[in-house]
Each structure stands twice: as C-alpha cells, then as structure tokens.
C-alpha cells in the first residue's frame, strides 16, 4: 500500500492552446523519471495526461481558458506513487451519464470521438472524476 505523504509537488497553469497537452506530458515524464518509474509506465502516464488535458480543452467550455495540472509524488520515505490532478473551471458534466464507447458503435457512427476517459481508466491504476458547476477535476494515480 503506497504511503500518501506528499514528497514533492509541481503545479502547471497551462493556457488552453493547441498542444498544451504536450507541455503537460513533458512535465509528467520528468516527474515520473525522477521517481524512477519504468519507461513503459511513464509512457502510460504521459498518454493519460495528454487525454485529460485534451478533455479539458475540448469539453470544459471554460471561460477561464486555463488548465491546472498538479503532479504529486507520494510515499512514506521513498517515492511510491504519482498522483496527477487535472482541473478546469468549465461547465462540468455527469460522468455516470457518459456511455462507454464501443468500437462496434463508433465504426457505424458519424462521431468517432469520446474515448478519453476510457483510455485514462485503462492506463492508470486509480482514477476519480469530480465534476460540477465550478469545473471538472480528474485525479489519476499510478504506482511506481
């Protein structure tokens, strides 16, 4: 069981501009490397960060065009877990109302998109989504 003491923390406030997700993913890589996560797991974290940022850009409809991304290295003495929080100040959504995307349906549908949360859940160890009128917060974690 990973300890939940925060050993290190980095927060980015990124403007919602094309490819800001790449900047967030670079920081994710640097933080994950600093805690000696394996390269394949780092790659998964990077992809999940990209998806969470894209969701914020595409779906938040936030007046404040900014995404805040916090990276926390958790553990007792040594780094054990990376927790990443992606926040927007958008209109929010009801996560339970989002249907699970299925490739069979997408192949027949005009709308092929809507995969972000499924990918994040598939790549990270723990994912929580809190959403309301003041915005959406995605909290996702991966053990080292």
């Amino acid at each position, binding site marked *: 069981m990973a300890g939940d003491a925060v050993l290190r923390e980095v927060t980015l406030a990124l403007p919602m501009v094309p*490819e*800001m997700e790449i900047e967030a*993913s670079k920081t994710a890589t640097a933080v994950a490397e600093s805690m000696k996560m394996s390269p394949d797991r780092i790659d998964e974290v990077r992809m999940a960060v990209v998806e969470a940022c*894209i969701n914020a850009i595409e779906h938040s409809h936030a007046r404040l065009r900014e995404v805040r991304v916090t990276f926390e290295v958790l553990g007792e003495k040594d780094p054990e877990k990376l927790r990443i929080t992606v926040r927007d100040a958008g209109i929010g959504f009801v996560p339970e109302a989002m249907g699970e995307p299925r*490739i069979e349906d*997408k192949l027949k549908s005009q709308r092929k*998109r809507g995969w972000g949360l499924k*990918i994040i859940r*598939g790549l990270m160890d723990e994912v929580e989504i809190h959403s309301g009128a003041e915005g959406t917060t995605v909290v996702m974690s991966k053990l080292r």
Partner: protein
Amino acid sequence: MTESLKLTVDRRDGLAVIYTEGYINNQGGEEIAKAGYKLIDEGYKRLLLNLAGTKIVNSIGISILIEIIEKMIEIDGKLGFCCLTPTIEKTFQIMGLTQYAPVFSNETEAVAQLGA
C-alpha cells in the same frame, strides 16, 4: 511547441506502407487519412501504417484512424499497424481497434500477413 507529423509513403505491389514520424493528433490524423484515401483512390486495398517514428498519439488522432478502418471495411480491404510503442498498442487494445486492424511487431511480419 508544435510537434508536426511527417509522412512517407512507400507504394509496393498491391500494398502501400505509410510511415509516420511525430505526434498523431487531429492534424496528424487528418494527414494520415488524406494519404490513406489517396492510396485507396489509386486502387490500394491493403495499407500498413508503420508507427515506428511515433511515440505519442491522442484519442482525436486515433478517432480519425477509425474512419480509415471504416473505409477499409467498406471496400473489403485490409489495414494493419506495425512497430507500435507498448503504450500505443495498449491504447489500441483498450479502444478495441485491434479487433478490426491487426497489430504486428515488425514490418516484415505485417507485410507477409497483409499481403497474403
């Protein structure tokens, strides 16, 4: 900041290989689709996407790849992928793409299977 996608197309006997280099986002996906549809118009029914030069993709880019898969199903063609990073392959599996477009570890195997 921009990580644009570079494409190279290799037309072979009955099969075309599209090599990607860079980030497959919405623009990257559109570029691949444009190249893919052009090849289909030229008569190619077997396409291989070699992603050895791509280390990162996003779901918008992959959604555009789903359009190409749909088109290949329509024309009774075959689309395959090869040389994916473990994370990109895992993402394709999460999304179910691998049910409709096989993933190969290397190009030689992919060409042998798709060309058969």
